[in-house]
């Protein structure tokens, strides 16, 4: 089902653990979206998000060997990112007078208060699952799917020209890419919980 010579995340993690730089670069490239979408929730400045991202990746370099299961990588990234965002918020709070209304931290630890907060969290976990699954896909799938959702939308002719594939094969290729995305562990769990 999978493109043959495309490394899986498990292969990338084990190659990076044994010191292969290109594997590390690929991990960063693939998982940065997951990290950024997770950090977005905390409404930090762009600069703070960049700092959080760098801290998380530095931690991962140190902890790569401790990841027993490569499959644990997305979860590790999400929880470490969350932790670093909260640390940044904590630092900010100490530096300015306390806002009476709320802190994002409170919103997160007591998610039972309002429906829209719950919805927000549901949306975030959906984003995280989809991005974790997306990171598993071969490069060709990722490129095609990105083009299909680009804004403003591209025509099939433009996509065909960019990917150098015939127009007629875009539909079937798209179907296979979405099948692969749906079959990833992260996304299949999401689909299960929907039903």
């Amino acid at each position, binding site marked *: 089902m999978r493109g043959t010579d495309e490394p899986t995340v498990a292969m990338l993690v084990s190659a*990076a653990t044994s010191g292969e*730089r290109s594997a*590390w*670069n690929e991990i*960063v*490239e693939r998982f*940065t*979206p*997951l990290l*950024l*979408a997770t950090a*977005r929730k905390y409404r930090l400045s*762009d*600069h703070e*998000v*960049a700092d959080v*991202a*760098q801290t998380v*990746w*530095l931690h*991962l*370099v*140190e902890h790569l060997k401790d990841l027993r299961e490569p499959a644990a990588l997305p979860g590790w990234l999400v929880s470490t990112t969350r932790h670093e965002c909260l640390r940044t918020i904590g630092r900010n709070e100490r530096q300015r007078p306390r806002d009476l209304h709320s802190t994002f931290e409170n919103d997160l630890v007591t998610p039972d208060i309002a429906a829209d907060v719950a919805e927000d969290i549901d*949306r975030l976990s*959906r*984003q*995280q699952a*989809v*991005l974790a699954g*997306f990171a598993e896909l071969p490069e060709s799938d990722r490129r095609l*799917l*990105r083009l*299909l*959702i680009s*804004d403003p*939308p*591209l*025509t*099939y002719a433009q996509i065909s020209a960019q990917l150098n594939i015939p127009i*007629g094969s875009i*539909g*079937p290729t*798209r*179907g296979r890419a*979405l099948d692969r*995305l*749906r079959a990833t562990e992260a*996304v299949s769990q999401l689909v299960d919980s929907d039903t």
Partner: protein
Amino acid sequence: MCDMDPLTPEEERLLADLKDALAAAQHPQRQLIVANAQDAFNYGDLEDELAHLVYDSLLEDDLVRSVRAAEVSRMVVFECQALTMELELRGREIIGQIGPPGPATVIVETSDGTLTTVQADALGCFTARASDPQGLLRFRVTRPGSSAITEWTYGPKQS
């Protein structure tokens, strides 16, 4: 889109979810984040000390920034245990001073892999030219007994 193979509702939902997720993952400095993260791999065995960005005129309040913007220049300061490095980035021109003062070799590296070597004088001052004022830059400083490398930073044209 001329659709000869319409999406199933399920596919449509998944594609919409993906669009929403990737939109949430956008960041104006994505390229910088990825470049610095990729470099993080080497920190463990790198001889160079990493100099962190401690000041950036782009991050100042709006008033100061608008004055700076008029000059089209940007000040950044990097710091590590061995040294500090103040840089003024103006167009393609880079004016730098390393403290404590003293001669040093400075290598200017761009994200496309271009390396330019310049010498800092006895006061630690140097000038260099960026091959691409909009791309990413970093600086490696070597002196007898110490060497340091800065984090990646944008050239002056990026805001």
